[in-house]
Structures are given as structure tokens and as C-alpha cells.
């Protein structure tokens, strides 16, 4: 059976490399001039670097433009990065600032239209159509997740249930009674729902769910299998950040071989986060975006925290839009343990391959003389034995696997089921105690 691929905007989605390059070059020239003329921050920055908009003719010239950092948005809090007067802004969103002030983004009516178009493409790329009933369990509010999905889902003509996050019992009731076919939320919350269903003895096959679109936190391929097995659905990774629009920057197609970035609206690059130099296609590094069509808050070479790899080959789905690998980790999530760099997602990937290990685990890093990594793992019925030797083998197996694959020394601690706190939003799987003591 050949795979089915749905498209919202077939013409744009199936443009070839050359056509995409042409669109990007043309739009890049325009947005650079727009930033120079309308955003004092960029005007100043260009002048400081002896750069003029005319110097940017094609994508190859993009490296001449200085990187924009998240700190720049914070320094210009709340509205100084806006390119239009407030009367032209129709919506404000903000990202949850884990430290200090949030980053604020403003949308013109045209920006909302663009975002809606991108979300329509994004949702349909997962083969969700107007036949579907989408239970949107992303938070509605300043966070972009809820409204982003909402507009896109309505655009394609699907039925949206704007339930927002939390209240799991109600989520399940709605899921049963309204026969939701699609669930949208964070991957952690999908697992939380799955566990809840199990505790209530509800057979997942009695539900109508068939697709899940999960994002807002990095999740591993192994976690995908867990979610798909637990909920009997097809799980897709979605990527976005509020600084660019929110969800809808990139999405997996049914190939699940990377997330297509909508290149008629964004130019992605990979740079070395250490020295800011651009990396080649296929090399790992930090993801950088230039927005090509945004009016409210256009961004040139905006550095994200996300570590990934780009692939510009044509995909089996017919799209040439560049694919980014599932985010490997966030630059500031990277753990340095006794000099070894490791992303929590890499630890998770190894853990999920071990039979009897569930997604309920926690990484705790502490320091006495050397860094200590303690891994709390909930014991599952599969791993439980009346024999201590078998339980200890289970522990050792985890420790050895982490050492042989990632060269990290972990002390595994087995804990009772339910002991690791479940999360409704983004999962807190890493606790670093070192920073407190220094």
C-alpha cells in the first residue's frame, strides 16, 4: 500500500529547490530592507557593522548579518523590536521566561494570516483533514500553542475542541464522548493521559484517537514508540517557537524522517554555538532562523537554543522544504558531567531501549568531589522480581548501558511506581543541584 500524503497548499508545498531558493532570495532582500527601515535595533546594528541592505543580495550573503540573540529581545522588552506601531498589532503572545522577563511577540493581521496558513499546512502534513476532531490540549493564553493549533485546525475545516491543558479526567471524558481523533499537547502530557487511562481501566481501543501532534519540548524517538504503543496512535513531532510565530515552523510528514521547515517563510541555518560560524548541510549545531514574511517582529538570523542537523534532500512525500532532525537537545539543557557533554534526550534514548524501564525516570546531578549523576528509575511490573540478584542486574544493566553508549557514570536508584512526579506541561526530568552549591 502506498503512503497517503495530504497537502494544504500543494503549490507552495511542492516547490522544488530552485524555486524555493528564488523565493527566499527575493524575500530576504525585502525583509532586510524592511528591518533596516523599521527596526531601530537592526538599523543601528547594520551601521555598526558597516553593512547596508544592498550588501545582501542572496542567501549566500546572509552570513554577513550579525546573529540576533534572545538577550536582544529581552533588552528591548517589551515592544522595542516591533517594526510597526502598536495600532497595527492585533495580537500579543509571550513565552514563559524561566529566568527574568518573558519574550514578547506582536502579530499584525497579516502575521496571524500567515501563521494560520502555516498551521493549516502543518496539521495537514500529518494527514489530518477536515474529517478529524482535534482535541487541542495545548494551553490557550499567552503561550502560542493553544491558539496556533486552533486557527490552523479551523482553517482546514477540522472540528476543534478548545479544551486547553490540564484536568485529565475531563480530557478523557471529552475524548470518549466527542470521539476525538487527534490529540495535540506536549509529549509528556500524552503519556500522562495514557497512564491515567490505564489507571481508570479504559481500553484505548474504545477511543477514536488515531493521531497525536506533540511538541513544545524535545522528545526522543524511543519516547515516540512508547507513546504510540500506549495510545495506539500515529505520533508526529511539531516544532516552533514564539519568537518566530509559535507552532508551525516545522512538522514531520508521514515519512517521519525529519521535520519540514516552511522555507518560503523561514531561512534556517546551522551555526557553531561556540564561534557563531555557519556549518555545512548535514553538520550538527545550533539552529538559526531568518523570518522572511513577518511584519510585527521580523528577525534576522535569530539564534535558537535547539541543536539539530539539516537535510536538504527531497523527501518521499514530494516536499523539498528542508528537514531538520528531531531536536537533539537544547544548548542550555546540555549537561556537562565530569567533562562529558550529554543531552538529557540522549540519556532518555538509551533508557527507553532497556526492557522494563518506563518513561518515569529522573536525572539528578549533584557534586560531592566529582559530579554525581543519580538516575531515579521507577520499577515496572516487568522489571520487578522477588530476587534481589535480578533487581540488581536490572540496575547494573542500566548503568552499563549509559557508560558504554555515553561514557557517563550513573548511579541508578530504583523507586516505587508513582514516586516520580508526573507532569502536565513540560516534563521536569533533570534536576541539577550543582548550581545551588557553587
Amino acid at each position, binding site marked *: 500500500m502506498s503512503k497517503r500524503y495530504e497537502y494544504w497548499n500543494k503549490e507552495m508545498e511542492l516547490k522544488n529547490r530552485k524555486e524555493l531558493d528564488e523565493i527566499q532570495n527575493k524575500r530576504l532582500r525585502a525583509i532586510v530592507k524592511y528591518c533596516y527601515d523599521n527596526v531601530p535595533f537592526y538599523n543601528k546594528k547594520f551601521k555598526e557593522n558597516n553593512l547596508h541592505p544592498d550588501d545582501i543580495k542572496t542567501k549566500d550573503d546572509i552570513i554577513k548579518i550579525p546573529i540576533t540573540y534572545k538577550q536582544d529581545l529581552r533588552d528591548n522588552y517589551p515592544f522595542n523590536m516591533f517594526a510597526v506601531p502598536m495600532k497595527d498589532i492585533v495580537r500579543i503572545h509571550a513565552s514563559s521566561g524561566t529566568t527574568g522577563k518573558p519574550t514578547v511577540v506582536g502579530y499584525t493581521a497579516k502575521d496571524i494570516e500567515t501563521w494560520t496558513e502555516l498551521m493549516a499546512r502543518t496539521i495537514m502534513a500529518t494527514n489530518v483533514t477536515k474529517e478529524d476532531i482535534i482535541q487541542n490540549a495545548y494551553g490557550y493564553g499567552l503561550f502560542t500553542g493553544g491558539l496556533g493549533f486552533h486557527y490552523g485546525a479551523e482553517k482546514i475545516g477540522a472540528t476543534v475542541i478548545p479544551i486547553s491543558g490540564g484536568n485529565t479526567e475531563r480530557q478523557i471524558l471529552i475524548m470518549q464522548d466527542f470521539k476525538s481523533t487527534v490529540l495535540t499537547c506536549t509529549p509528556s502530557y500524552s503519556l500522562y493521559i495514557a497512564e491515567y487511562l490505564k489507571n481508570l481501566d479504559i481500553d484505548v481501543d474504545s477511543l477514536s484517537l488515531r493521531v497525536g501532534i506533540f511538541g513544545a519540548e524535545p522528545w526522543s524517538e524511543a519516547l515516540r514508540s512508547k507513546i504510540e504503543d500506549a495510545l495506539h496512535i500515529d505520533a508526529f513531532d511539531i516544532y516552533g517557537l514564539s519568537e518566530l510565530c509559535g507552532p508551525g515552523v516545522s512538522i514531520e510528514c508521514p515519512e517521519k524522517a525529519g521535520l519540514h521547515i516552511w522555507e518560503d517563510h523561514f531561512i534556517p541555518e546551522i551555526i557553531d554555538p561556540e564561534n557563531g560560524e555557519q556549518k555545512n548541510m548535514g553538520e550538527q549545531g545550533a539552529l538559526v532562523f531568518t523570518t522572511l514574511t513577518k511584519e510585527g517582529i521580523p528577525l534576522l538570523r535569530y539564534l535558537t537554543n535547539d541543536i539539530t542537523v539539516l537535510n536538504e534532500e527531497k523527501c518521499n512525500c514530494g516536499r523539498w522544504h528542508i528537514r531538520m532532525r528531531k531536536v537533539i537537545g537544547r544548548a542550555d539543557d546540555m549537561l556537562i558531567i565530569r567533562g562529558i557533554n550529554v543531552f538529557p534526550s540522549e540519556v532518555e534514548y538509551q533508557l527507553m531501549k532497556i526492557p522494563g524501564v518506563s518513561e518515569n525516570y529522573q536525572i539528578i546531578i549533584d557534586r560531592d568531589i566529582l559530579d554525581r549523576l543519580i538516575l531515579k528509575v521507577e*520499577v*515496572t*511490573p516487568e522489571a*520487578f*522480581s*522477588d*530476587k*534481589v*540478584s535480578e*533487581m*540488581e542486574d536490572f540496575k547494573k544493566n542500566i548503568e552499563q548501558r549509559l557508560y558504554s553508549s555515553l561514557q557517563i557514570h550513573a548511579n541508578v*536508584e*530504583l*523507586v*516505587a*511506581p*508513582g*514516586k516520580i512526579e508526573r507532569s502536565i506541561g513540560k516534563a521536569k526530568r533533570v534536576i541539577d543541584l550543582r548550581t545551588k552549591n557553587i
Partner: protein
Amino acid sequence: MVKQVSVFLPNEPGVLAKFTELLENNKINIRALTVAETADYGILRIIVNNPDKCIEVLRNANYLVSETDVLAFEVEDKPGGLHRIANLMGENNINIEYLYSTLTSKTAIILMRVNDLEKASTLLKDAGIKIFSGSEIYSI
């Protein structure tokens, strides 16, 4: 064959009290018990009057529980009684995973977990040792 209930218990204050309270509230009596403990957790193994109910009660309370068959037999109350059994198992290549005991007013009973239950049971029977059935043990 006797059904033993094994329970995962973290090493934390109050865990055991909570556990025994649950059993008491459900009128489950412990006939024999042993704990294997490590630095972070313990495995409690118990023989109770009603193993099926016990497992249900514990599972509903979200305990991690498993059920294991063990052998229960009488041991002579004199020096070398247990030694004889250990030898018998060793000579016949049966690995004793663990054992523990309980006393009644009349006799000492050993509960033993081995890698080959059938073979161990036959060996004991052939050696003239009294083996208890589940119901005999549950109703001590």
C-alpha cells in the same frame, strides 16, 4: 506448592507501617515473612492467609507486587536438619535462591525458593520429608 507474595518497598520511614496497616484493615494475616534489603529498596516476601485477596488489595493500592511459588516443608528440630536439605539440593544441582522459616506450636517450617520447583519437590518427598500444601500453610 505455596503462593508467596513479593512486594517492592522503598527504604523510607513509615513505609512498612503503612503497608502492615493496609493488610490489617483488609484482614490479611501474615504467616511468614522475610525481607531482602539493599541501600535504596527492599523486597518483602510474605506468606498470607489469602494470597489472591492480598495481591488484589496491594495492586489497588498501587504497590508493585508479584506472585511466586515456593516450597514449604517440615524440618527436624535437631542439629543438622537444614544441612541435610541443603546437601540434597546441592548434590542434585538445584539452586536455592533463598529460604526462610516460620514456627508453629508443633513444628518448624521452611519456605524455600528454588530454580526447579518440580525436581526439588520430588527430591524432598523421596527423602521422606513432609511437604505442606498451600491451604495447609495459609490456615496455620
